[in-house]
């Protein structure tokens, strides 16, 4: 079996332009999906973080960056605690970044409000049940509406 087709220079230019539009829409959709994922994970995490002086809670942050070390449209997110100027706990005098790891990992500690694994649990839950679906929805929306 054999197939052949002819493309003029003008047709190739149009094809390339339409590919660029699709790539830009996927780029916008990916960025929106990454931000939405961070919002959802951090909102769940803030509900679970132990709340005594609210220092850890106030240090919650996320950042979304466009990767510059690769040529494709990739976004990466950093999310966690110890941000927002790394506030100091008024009871202990320690910055949030100095004790957040112990609070997160110490499964034997008792907390009146909140729990250990306050970031890992929401992150894993999101990754397992929502990540693929949400990415698909945002990309689909971006392709159909232009990502605006």
């Amino acid at each position, binding site marked *: 079996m054999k197939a052949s087709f002819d493309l003029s220079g003008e047709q190739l230019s149009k094809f390339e332009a339409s590919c660029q539009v699709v790539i830009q829409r996927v780029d916008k959709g990916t960025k929106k999906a990454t931000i939405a994922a961070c919002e959802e994970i951090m909102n769940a995490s803030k509900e679970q973080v132990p709340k005594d002086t609210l220092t850890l809670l106030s240090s919650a942050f996320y950042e979304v960056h466009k990767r510059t070390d690769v040529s494709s449209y990739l976004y990466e997110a950093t999310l966690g605690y110890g941000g927002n100027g790394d506030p100091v706990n008024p009871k202990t005098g320690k910055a949030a970044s100095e004790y957040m790891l*112990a609070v997160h990992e*110490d499964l*034997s500690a008792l907390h009146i409000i909140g729990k*250990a*694994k306050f970031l890992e649990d929401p992150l*894993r839950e999101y990754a397992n*049940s929502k990540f693929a679906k949400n990415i698909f929805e945002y990309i689909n929306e971006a392709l159909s509406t232009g990502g605006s």
Partner: protein
Amino acid sequence: MATLLLDIASFLKTKGIVTGDGVDTYRDFIPEEPDSLVALMEYKGDPANALDAAVHRSVQITTRNKNADIARQKALQIYKVLVDNQDEAYGIQFTSDRFGQVYIRQTPFRYKTDENHRAYYCFNIGITTNIE
């Protein structure tokens, strides 16, 4: 089938890393004494899958010692015995009744020092295995 944590403790005992459950190895709690111990704590896993009898569970392995270097070495020893006993599909036969696919989530790290100057190291693993 024994509980998952008891099966892991038994596995570590057969490998000569711990003396035994309730002696230097504790499950789901960390006692005040002895200073030197290994603690196995299960925490939130993933929801069950209707198509599969196995579930994905999460376990934290903690070591404690007054000497931080000894605590770190013990955590590394456990880490290495898990890696060395994984088959090509990450499976480990913990006991005759307990098989699990083990996903080591990170290398051991120090997460706190308590008021008695004892260092705590831990690492977390995911295990796909049966539920008791």
